């Protein structure tokens, strides 16, 4: 039986993030690895949340492979994106969000 909300996609068992398969709105609760998490902000499909606590400098794993490392400690359920994930490849600039 899945320990994740059906709107969350776990791409590999060893991943420490799950991907949203649908938009999840502020304040909604989702089951992440068996634990109910309240989503702090509305996040669209394709965005990621931590499926367990991730420590500073730890690799962030998607598809079972590193997509960068944690720039700070990340709590379970927290949005994982440009603000707390740093690429090990070429650093990318924080881009302006579209108006």
């Amino acid at each position, binding site marked *: 039986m899945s320990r994740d909300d059906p709107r969350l996609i776990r791409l590999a068992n060893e991943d420490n993030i799950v991907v949203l398969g649908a938009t999840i709105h502020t304040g909604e609760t989702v089951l992440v690895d068996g634990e109910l998490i309240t989503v702090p902000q509305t996040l669209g499909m394709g965005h*990621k949340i931590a499926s367990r606590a991730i420590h500073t400098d730890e690799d962030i794993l998607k598809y079972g492979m590193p997509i960068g490392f944690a720039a700070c400690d990340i709590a379970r359920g927290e949005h*994982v994106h440009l603000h707390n994930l740093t690429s090990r490849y070429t650093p990318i600039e924080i881009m302006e969000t579209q108006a």
Partner: protein
Amino acid sequence: MTAQMQGWLRDDGRKGIRNVVLVAYLVECAHHVCTRIARPFDESEVQVIGFSGCFPSDYGQQMMEALCTHPNVGAVQLVSLGCENFKKRRLAEVIEASGRPVNLVTIQSEGGSQTSIEAGQGWVRAQLANLAAQPKVPMAVSELVVGTICGGSDATSGIAGNPAAGVAFDRLVAEGATCIFEETGELIGCEHIMADRVANPDLRPQIIATVEKAAHYYAAMGYGSFSNGNAEGGLSSIEEKSLGAYAKSGSSAIQGIVRPAQRPANGGLWLLDVVPDGEPRFGFPNINDSAEIIELIACGAHAVIFVTGRGSVVGSAISPVLKVCANPDTYSRMREDMDVNAGRILHGHASIAEVGEEIRDQLVALGLGSRSRSEQLGHAEFVLTYKTPVSQQPGCHPGG
């Protein structure tokens, strides 16, 4: 266990899951005559391909030779204007040596357009009668060569469609099939991860060099890799974006690198390097999805898995294209063009493994007589442009 596939046995031992007659122009000036030769026939039986340029091209020659002797091809009608530079006699000899019927019509000596159209149609009609009588033989999944690409991608491609295609690839490789992935220009950032997956350590530096070459080439073309739109869609790094494309390859060990028109030496997973060596010439390596698909087919692919999010509709000449739609909204709008609904993964209605299994099963069904949506709709796209020909590299594994 699935039913036994059936194929047409060719002289080189390969088997085809289709038995098409190609009508091939050897310069654009002969294209219209080919279109008219093929017009009375269905796309499932007769398809038009060709090389448009008049200047000589070793790449064009290699591609046309590989395509005209592809296992899905039963006979070839060549149409020349007469004064182009294409080595048409050599192509005709290669086709004849492969055991296939070949007929060369040269418009300037035949008497003109109408005379050539009638001559070509008469020959094609006779071939169709012959091909219809050719027996099929049992074909194993291990004899299949399958390619994969993605196009018209969106955020769903990397999280639903491509991972499911990767599961299908893993299944097919486990059954002994040959699987080919490509798009090194979209693998920038995961070359070191890819290099860790090689079957033979000698391949490591070649894999990294292949991706670095692609990065250099696309940068010279003024083509960036990571956009604001990617970040808005939830992607946080170039390696994350690239891994989304890379997910199509599954998790099998990489056997080696092939170049356009080269055949993998044995079963398993292969990387197709579509980017020419040396300084950029002739523009983009492949100008669109159809040009990429035809290079996979020139490497022997019997069928191509095509993952889309926004909704591509293309098929291809020679080999069926199986459309996997990752976006559930696109699927409900464009289901007439889609073979597999991978969007179910996003709604939690199916797992990646289940959809991967369905892709594998639909692919095998193409060898049992079923036709993909793009085939049913008559899609038979074909694009072949100028490109720097491949220089043979030691350590690569060119096919026969």
